[in-house]
């Protein structure tokens, strides 16, 4: 391999590590997360790993499908690099912080790393392909593509907050009125983020306010809601919990989730 190829590879991996930390550090430094990694049902954790892999594959496929696309082998390799970077970044940071000891207690370490790959691998994919020189350009701007990106954004924000006790606590204190207000607030923030306040990737509501609100903001919120519910279920927050509380928790978590979804539309 050529020297420039080596350098490009090292830079790309470096960006992936940086992206993994950028997206996953809040989660890595959350106490509830360390405990949850050990107590989450094994099949749910395995399912989470599968979902992570699918999401990362999808992201890298869409990032790598530009005019100079990388092909199937290319995006499979990209996804592998992202997952590897996520695991390495988490192991180094958590090992240094003393949360895990990969040598003495590798079982516990693996559980923690399995759970952390979700936001970290998304961050790694994003940073490796979108930031810096030689970035891959996404091609698709189709509707399905937009919804997929919003889902990925919701995952990152929701995953970072989902393990905290605060979600349960806030949901327990919130009455029905506050839950409804939260939904409204989430929708307003989402729509404002994308269409109103003038961020870099701001979009024009080409097809009318109502239409863009219904087709993108509401659908994006639904995606954030579904993502939040899935993550809460994975972390066992719905076990022994009534439907009302489950919905309240999901609405609380969907607030950061929807912000993530809106941000993803601007950034990606």
């Amino acid at each position: 391999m050529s020297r420039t190829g080596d350098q490009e590879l090292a830079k790309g991996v470096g960006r992936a590590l940086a992206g993994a930390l950028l997206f996953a550090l809040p989660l890595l430094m959350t106490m509830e997360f360390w405990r949850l990694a050990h107590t989450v049902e094994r099949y749910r954790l395995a399912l989470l790993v599968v979902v992570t892999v699918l999401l990362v594959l999808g992201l890298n496929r869409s990032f790598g499908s530009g005019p100079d696309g990388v092909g199937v082998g290319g995006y499979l390799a990209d996804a592998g690099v992202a997952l590897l970077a996520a695991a390495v970044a988490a192991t180094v940071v958590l090992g240094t912080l003393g949360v895990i000891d990969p040598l003495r207690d590798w079982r516990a370490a693996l559980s923690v790393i399995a759970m952390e790959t979700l936001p970290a691998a998304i961050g790694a994919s994003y940073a490796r392909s979108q930031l810096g020189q030689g970035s891959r350009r996404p091609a698709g701007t189709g509707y399905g593509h937009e919804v997929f990106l919003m889902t990925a954004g919701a995952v990152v924000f929701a995953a970072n907050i989902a393990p905290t006790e605060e979600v349960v606590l806030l949901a327990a204190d919130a009455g029905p009125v506050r839950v409804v207000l939260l939904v409204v607030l989430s929708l307003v923030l989402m729509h404002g983020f994308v269409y109103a306040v003038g961020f870099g990737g701001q979009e024009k509501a080409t097809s009318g306010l109502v239409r863009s609100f219904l087709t993108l903001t509401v659908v994006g919120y639904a995606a954030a809601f579904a993502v939040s519910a899935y993550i809460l279920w994975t972390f066992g927050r719905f076990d022994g919990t009534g439907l009302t509380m489950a919905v309240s928790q999901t609405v609380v978590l969907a607030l950061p989730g929807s912000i993530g979804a809106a941000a993803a539309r601007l950034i990606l």
Partner: protein
Amino acid sequence: MDDDEDRSGGKERTTGGEYALGALGGLLVVLLLGFLTYQAVAVRESGAELSVTVTSVEPSGDGYAVHFRVVNTGGRTAEQVQVSGTLSQNGSEVEQSTATVAYVPPESWRVGALLFSEDPGTGRLQVGPSGYTAP
């Protein structure tokens, strides 16, 4: 696609090194899933199994510190693990001490200390787990 030199848009090509790292990442995922499946099938069936061993007794402050290690050999995490020690002399209880460990994951151990004002060496010291909550 393996050759990164044959096109003008060289930066967009996937290099051999990327494939190697990508394969390593794939291997990691397979290992993770294998480990989780193994844990689900083989290990996790049992509950938490706690045992406490005294590692050392040292004078500490005005009294004595009995350092212990609590090990969880079971398949599930134990939370709020209570470790208690009873010091008895001539058959009658002299002093009691408890400590709470936040959580002990499966196949892991945590350390702590029970504090006594009497010298534990002068009597019979019994140390053991006295309770935990399941997460």
